[in-house]
C-alpha cells in the first residue's frame, strides 16, 4: 500500500475497510477450535509441533528464517570482527582519496563521503533495524493486546470507544501520523520505535479482538465460566492459547513493516540521527551522491530488502503452517 506500507504489515489492510470492502473484522483469523475443550495443553503441543514441521518444509520460509538468524548472528558478533577487518562504522577519514571509494577488497561496499566503511555501517545498521523492529512491535503488542482484550472481552461501550479510536488511527495517513508524532517527540533512536510502536496497536487490537470474539462463542469458555473461573484465568487459560497464532503471524510480519518504516523515517530525517548507522539514514546521505557513488545507494537498500523479505517470507510460512487465515 504505497509509501506508507512501511508499517502496514504485508497482510493487514490498514484502511477502515478491508479488501472486501466490509468493515474489517478479520473473522478468519482463528485457529481451528480445539476438540474436546479443556485439554488445550496437550492439543496445542502437537499443534505447535505440526506447525514447526510444516514451517521447515516450506523452503522460502526456511530461507527467511536462516537469513534472519544470520543477520542476528552478524550483529551480535560484529564488535569482534567488523571493526578490525573493515574499519569502525563511525571512524571518519576525510583525507582525499579515502572517501567515496568504490567497492574493493579492502572495502567490499566502498566508503561514504566521510570515508567510513559502508560494509561496516551496513552490518551495524542491522542492529538499529532489528532493535527498532523488535521494540516497536513489542510496544504495539502490549498496547494492542491490552486494547483488544478490553474491547473483545468486555464488549459494550468500551469496545465501541476502543474501536472508534482505532478508526481514527486508521483514518490518519500513516506516514504523516508518524512524522507528526516524531515532530512532537523529537527525532531520535528511542522516539522512532516509540512512535512506530504507538501507531501499530490498532491492527493488533483488531486481530486479537476478533480472535476473542470467535473463541468466546465456544462452549468450553462457557463451561469454564460456569465453573467459576475468573476473567483473568479465562483469558490466559482459554482465550490466549487460541488467539496466539494469529498474533504471532501478525507480529512477525509487523517486524518487517516496522523495519521499513524506521528506514523511511530516518530517510526523511525524522528518525535515527547521524552518525548512528541506520540503513534509512545511509540512503538519505546517499541521495545527493546517487549518481556519483551508486554503491552508497545499493547496499543499504539491499540490506533493508533482504531483511524485510525474510520476515515477510517467514510470516507467510507461519501463516500457512499455523493455518491462520488472513485476507491476502
Amino acid at each position, binding site marked *: *500500500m*504505497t*509509501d*506508507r*506500507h*512501511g508499517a502496514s504489515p*504485508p497482510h493487514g*489492510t*490498514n*484502511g*477502515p*475497510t478491508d*479488501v*472486501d*470492502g466490509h*468493515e474489517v473484522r478479520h473473522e478468519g483469523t482463528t485457529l481451528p477450535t480445539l476438540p474436546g475443550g479443556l485439554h488445550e495443553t496437550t492439543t496445542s503441543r502437537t499443534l505447535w509441533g505440526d506447525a514447526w514441521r510444516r514451517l521447515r518444509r516450506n523452503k*522460502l520460509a526456511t530461507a527467511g528464517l536462516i537469513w534472519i538468524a544470520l543477520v542476528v548472528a552478524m550483529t551480535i558478533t560484529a564488535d569482534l570482527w567488523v571493526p578490525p577487518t573493515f574499519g569502525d562504522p563511525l571512524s571518519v577519514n576525510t583525507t582525499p582519496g579515502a572517501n567515496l571509494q568504490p567497492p574493493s577488497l579492502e572495502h567490499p561496499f566502498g566508503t561514504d563521503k566521510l570515508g567510513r566503511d559502508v560494509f561496516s555501517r551496513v552490518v551495524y545498521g542491522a542492529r538499529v533495524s532489528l532493535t527498532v523492529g523488535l521494540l516497536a512491535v513489542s510496544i504495539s503488542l502490549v498496547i494492542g493486546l491490552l486494547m483488544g482484550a478490553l474491547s473483545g472481552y468486555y464488549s459494550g461501550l468500551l469496545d465501541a470507544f476502543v474501536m*472508534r*479510536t482505532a*478508526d*481514527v488511527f486508521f*483514518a*490518519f*495517513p500513516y*506516514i*504523516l501520523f508518524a*512524522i*507528526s*508524532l516524531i*515532530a*512532537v517527540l*523529537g527525532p531520535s533512536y528511542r522516539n522512532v520505535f516509540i512512535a512506530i510502536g504507538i501507531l501499530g496497536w490498532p491492527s493488533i487490537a483488531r486481530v486479537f479482538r476478533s480472535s476473542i470474539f470467535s473463541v468466546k462463542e465456544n462452549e468450553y469458555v462457557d463451561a469454564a465460566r460456569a465453573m467459576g473461573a475468573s476473567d483473568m484465568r479465562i483469558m490466559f487459560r482459554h482465550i490466549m492459547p487460541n488467539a496466539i497464532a494469529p498474533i504471532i503471524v501478525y507480529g512477525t510480519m509487523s517486524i*518487517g513493516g516496522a523495519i*521499513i518504516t524506521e*528506514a*523511511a523515517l530516518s*530517510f*526523511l*530525517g*525524522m528518525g535515527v540521527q547521524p552518525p548512528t548507522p541506520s540503513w*534509512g539514514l545511509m*540512503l538519505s546521505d*546517499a*541521495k545527493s551522491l*546517487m*549518481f556519483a557513488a*551508486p554503491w552508497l*545507494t*545499493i547496499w*543499504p*537498500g539491499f540490506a*533493508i*530488502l*533482504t531483511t*524485510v*523479505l525474510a520476515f*515477510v*517470507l517467514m510470516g*507467510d510460512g507461519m501463516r500457512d503452517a499455523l493455518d491462520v487465515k488472513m485476507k*491476502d
Partner: protein
Amino acid sequence: MFKYVVRRVFQMIPVFIGVTLILFILRAPGVLPGDPVRMITGERGMTDALRQQIIEKHGLDQPLHRQYVIYLGNLLQGDLGESYQRGRAVTEIFADKLPNTLRLALAAIVIEGIVGVTAGIISAVRQYSFLDVLVTLSTSILVSVPVFWLGMLFQIFFGIKLKEWTGGAFYLPISQMSSAQFPDWAHMILPAITLASVSTAYVARIMRSQMLEAMGQDYIRTAEAKGLTRRAVTFRHALKNALIPVVTFVGIDFGVMMGGAILTETVFSWPGVGREIFLAVGQRDWPIVMGGVVIIVFLVMIINLLVDLSYALLDPRIRYGGGPE
C-alpha cells in the same frame, strides 16, 4: 441508499473530530518545543507590537479548547486558516498541490490495476507454473522493497546508466527539468511506477487468491457443464467475481495515495500534498499540517464511501438499505 450515505457521512464526524483533536493536542504549547510565534517570524528579533499582532491574527492568545472550537467553526465554512510562514491561505496552497498528487496517483492506479490484475490472473490460471512462481516471488520481494530506495534505483538505472549505455539514445527523464526532448507526461513514468510498485504486488496477490477461490466454486462447474470454453468460464464467470475485492482494494489505495506518497514525492522532488505537509512539519507550520491532514482524511473518507457504493454495483448481493448491517 440515500439513508446509507447519510449514515456514513454522520459516521465520519467522530473520526474527523478525533483526527483534528489529536493534531491539536500534538501542537499544544508545552507539547511542542519552540515558540510558535518565533517560528512564524523566523526567529529574528521583533517588536512586542508585531508579536502581539501575529498572536492576535492566528488566535494564539486564546485558550486551546477555544482555539479548537474556532478552528472547527472555520472548517465548517471551508476556511483552513493561513500558513504561518507563507502568508497564504492553506486552501490556496493545497489547491496548487492537489492536482499534482491526483495526477501521480491516477497514473499509479492505472499501472497497478493493469499490471497487478494481469499478473494475478496469469498466476492463478497457470497455478504452480514457472510464471506463477515468478509472480508469487516477485510480489513478496516488491512488498519488501523500500519505495524510496526503488525510486533511487530507478533514477540511477533509467536516468543515468541507461543513458550512458545507449549513448543517450534511450532513457527516461527523472525530473520535469529534462523534459525538452520528452512529452510532458514522460517525467511521470518513473514516479508513477515507484508509487505503484507495492500496491501492484498487493493487487497481484489479491487477484491471484480471489481468482483461485472463484475457480473452485460450484458455479464454475455449472458454467463448464453448459459447454462454455475454458476461456469464457475463466474470464466471464470467475473474473467478474474475483474482481470485486480487487476493485475495492484499488479504490481504497487511491485514497491512501492522497497523503501516503511522501516518500515517492521526496525522492522525485514531486510537488505534491504529502511532501507539502512533510515540509510544513519541519517548519512547524501547523495550519498547513492540520489543513493538509484534514483535506486528506476528508478525501479518503469520500473515496472509501464511493468504493463501498460501487461495491453495490459490482456485487448484486450487497444492497445498502437504511437498516442495520
